């Protein structure tokens, strides 16, 4: 109890609270701008934190992390341009809600789902750090491969009614992820004679291309469309408020997605994008009305955002308990710990228990401030829907080019973005689902590295995937998922096939 009070004393100072607020605001802005990512913002802020107290410096970084992870959803919902790769799953239903004049509803759910998931993630960090870390330690290459295969079955889930095209898009995403240097041997493959392709296709160019550029090309066909909202948008309007029915649909989804996100966050290397898509796919798979997804299903926003933000505190579990960063952002933050003489690992809990207590308090306080700042900013964010297409889309295109350039510093990648934009445009025109392409691209390296490392571990045998219990469990889940999707697709096809005995009209 003394430690808790000491922690409260350290966190509830004007300096620490201000640093958390600054971190959150900067994070939300950075997250909402396509191309600027959270690792970049954390890296830039890192040297500033060296001059601050340990808890103050880390408070700012945690604020950027949490704010940035949520901020990606703002542009995804409002202009269908995911600010972060993880927010691409939010765009699927969030942007559809905005097109229906319900941007406030999507923004509210995005914020509240993020906050609830963050609270669950914070509690998991505080109460179950050690058992969760023990679980994460059991995840080796075979389990990573099996998780990847399970997540890949989402391609089928997200392609319902268009299975051939969905599977093709997923296979294309997987194939695109294999371009460039082989992550295991360092050999080059599929560079097609271009040095610029030796590092593979840029993920940010792919995301911005298939979402932002493709959307801009679709909109240029009919440029005189009116903006989504003509007058001032009021969040108090019924269309912008969450109804009891919205909560009834979303709350079970959030309470299921957040723990899954916590486990994914605790496993080093998986990250927020995998969690967001996995939870979106599971939610759609379990839904009695999967056809609503992609058309503005509020629980789609809830699943993606809770899955996305549940990762944020969970990535600190392996960092604090084992000294192993859960993702790129915590890897950068490790620098801040070390500069302040704090070496993450089991000894940290024994030797710096006061700091650990303050850290736990700070993480919870950051979530509370996140709710306040996010809610205060919402009336401002939602006014984006009033901007006319003739201003909005030229600005989106300039922002997209700028975002890819500042991320990659390569004109080749900017041209690539335009190429992916054309690909996305033709995919939309020919009714190819875009989400499987991104899922394939995200999961490709995970699956390939997991597969090849496992086969090396077992000296060429594939039995290793079935003899390890966790790996076998994930493969069994993948098989169940395929059966569910197959049965659903078969029923859908039967429903859509006209009965030959019924005479056709006309």
């Amino acid at each position, binding site marked *: 109890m003394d430690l808790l009070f000491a922690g409260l004393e350290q966190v509830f100072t004007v300096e620490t609270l201000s640093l958390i607020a600054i971190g959150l605001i900067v994070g939300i802005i950075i997250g909402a701008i396509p191309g600027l990512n959270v690792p970049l913002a954390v890296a830039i802020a890192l040297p500033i934190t060296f001059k601050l107290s340990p808890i103050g410096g880390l408070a700012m970084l945690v604020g950027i992390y949490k704010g940035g992870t949520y901020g990606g959803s703002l542009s995804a919902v409002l202009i269908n341009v995911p600010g972060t790769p993880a927010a691409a799953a939010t765009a699927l239903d969030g942007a559809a809600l905005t097109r229906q004049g319900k941007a406030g509803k999507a923004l509210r759910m995005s914020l509240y789902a993020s906050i609830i998931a963050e609270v669950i993630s914070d509690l998991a960090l505080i109460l179950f750090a050690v058992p969760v870390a023990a679980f994460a330690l059991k995840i080796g290459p075979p389990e990573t491969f099996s998780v990847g295969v399970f997540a890949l079955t989402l391609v089928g889930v997200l392609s319902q009614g268009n299975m051939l095209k969905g599977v*093709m898009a997923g296979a*294309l995403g997987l194939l695109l992820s294999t371009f460039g240097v*082989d992550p295991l041997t360092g050999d080059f493959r599929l560079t097609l004679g271009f040095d610029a392709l030796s590092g593979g296709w840029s993920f940010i160019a792919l995301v911005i291309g298939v979402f932002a*550029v493709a959307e801009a090309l679709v909109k240029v066909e009919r*440029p005189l469309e009116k903006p989504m909202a003509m007058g001032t948008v009021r969040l108090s309007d019924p269309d912008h408020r969450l109804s009891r029915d919205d909560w009834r649909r979303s709350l079970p989804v959030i309470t299921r997605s957040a723990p899954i996100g916590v486990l994914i966050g605790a496993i080093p290397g998986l990250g927020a994008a995998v969690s967001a898509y996995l939870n979106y796919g599971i939610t759609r798979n379990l839904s009695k009305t999967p056809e609503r997804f992609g058309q503005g299903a509020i629980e789609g926003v809830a699943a993606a955002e809770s899955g996305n933000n549940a990762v944020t505190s969970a990535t600190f579990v392996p960092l604090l308990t084992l000294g192993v960063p859960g993702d790129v952002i915590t890897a950068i933050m490790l620098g801040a710990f070390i500069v302040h003489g704090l070496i993450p690992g089991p000894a940290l809990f024994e030797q710096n228990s006061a700091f650990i207590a303050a850290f736990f308090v700070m993480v919870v306080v950051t979530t509370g401030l996140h709710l306040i700042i996010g809610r205060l900013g919402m009336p401002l964010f939602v006014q984006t829907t009033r901007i006319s297409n003739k201003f909005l889309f030229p*600005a989106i295109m300039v922002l997209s*080019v*700028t975002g890819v350039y500042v991320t990659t510093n390569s004109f080749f990648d900017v041209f690539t973005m335009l190429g992916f*934009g054309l690909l996305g445009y033709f995919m939309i025109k020919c009714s190819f689902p875009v989400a499987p392409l991104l899922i394939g691209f995200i999961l490709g390296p995970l699956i390939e590295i997991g597969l*090849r490392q496992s086969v090396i571990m077992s000296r060429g045998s594939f039995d290793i995937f079935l003899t390890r219990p966790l790996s076998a469990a994930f493969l069994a889940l993948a098989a169940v998922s395929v059966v569910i999707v197959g049965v659903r697709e078969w029923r859908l096809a039967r429903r859509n096939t006209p009965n030959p005995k019924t005479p056709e009209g006309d």
Partner: protein
Amino acid sequence: MGTGRRRPGGDTWIALGLIAANAVFLRDLFDTEPGGAYLKTTTLPIALSVSLTVLSVLLLGWSLLRPAAPQAEAAAEPVPGPPPAVRVLAATLLTAGYIAALPWFGYLMSSCAYFAAMSLLYGNRNPVSIVAVMVAVPLALMLFFEQYMIVLLPSAGLFE
């Protein structure tokens, strides 16, 4: 309107495009000296490329053999000005030109010109608003990235 002979549509062209692209990829992969133990560097890409080719052939067959759908009764309301395909082509070429111009004319000049051209393409005919926004947006982005994020944007190589 009954079912008739099917003309090649978007699916047909996408399938043909993917088959052609995969032929290029497979040639590159078979020319690569594969490294690695058990599963080689090129094993997974070859498997994926072959799978995608097979799926593309299936799509091609399906797109050519399925009965033609009845034509839509009511076309969408026509938009004044060039047809949609020309607008898409113009937007694509403008963007490609913008990216190509960045290293020569710099971020600010290229972005202002591109913003103005795109505003016209999206139907803005108000010169005051075009000029105001074409300067404000790129300038704000440049100040944000260069002053606050300390990220350098392309400078005008032609005038250096």
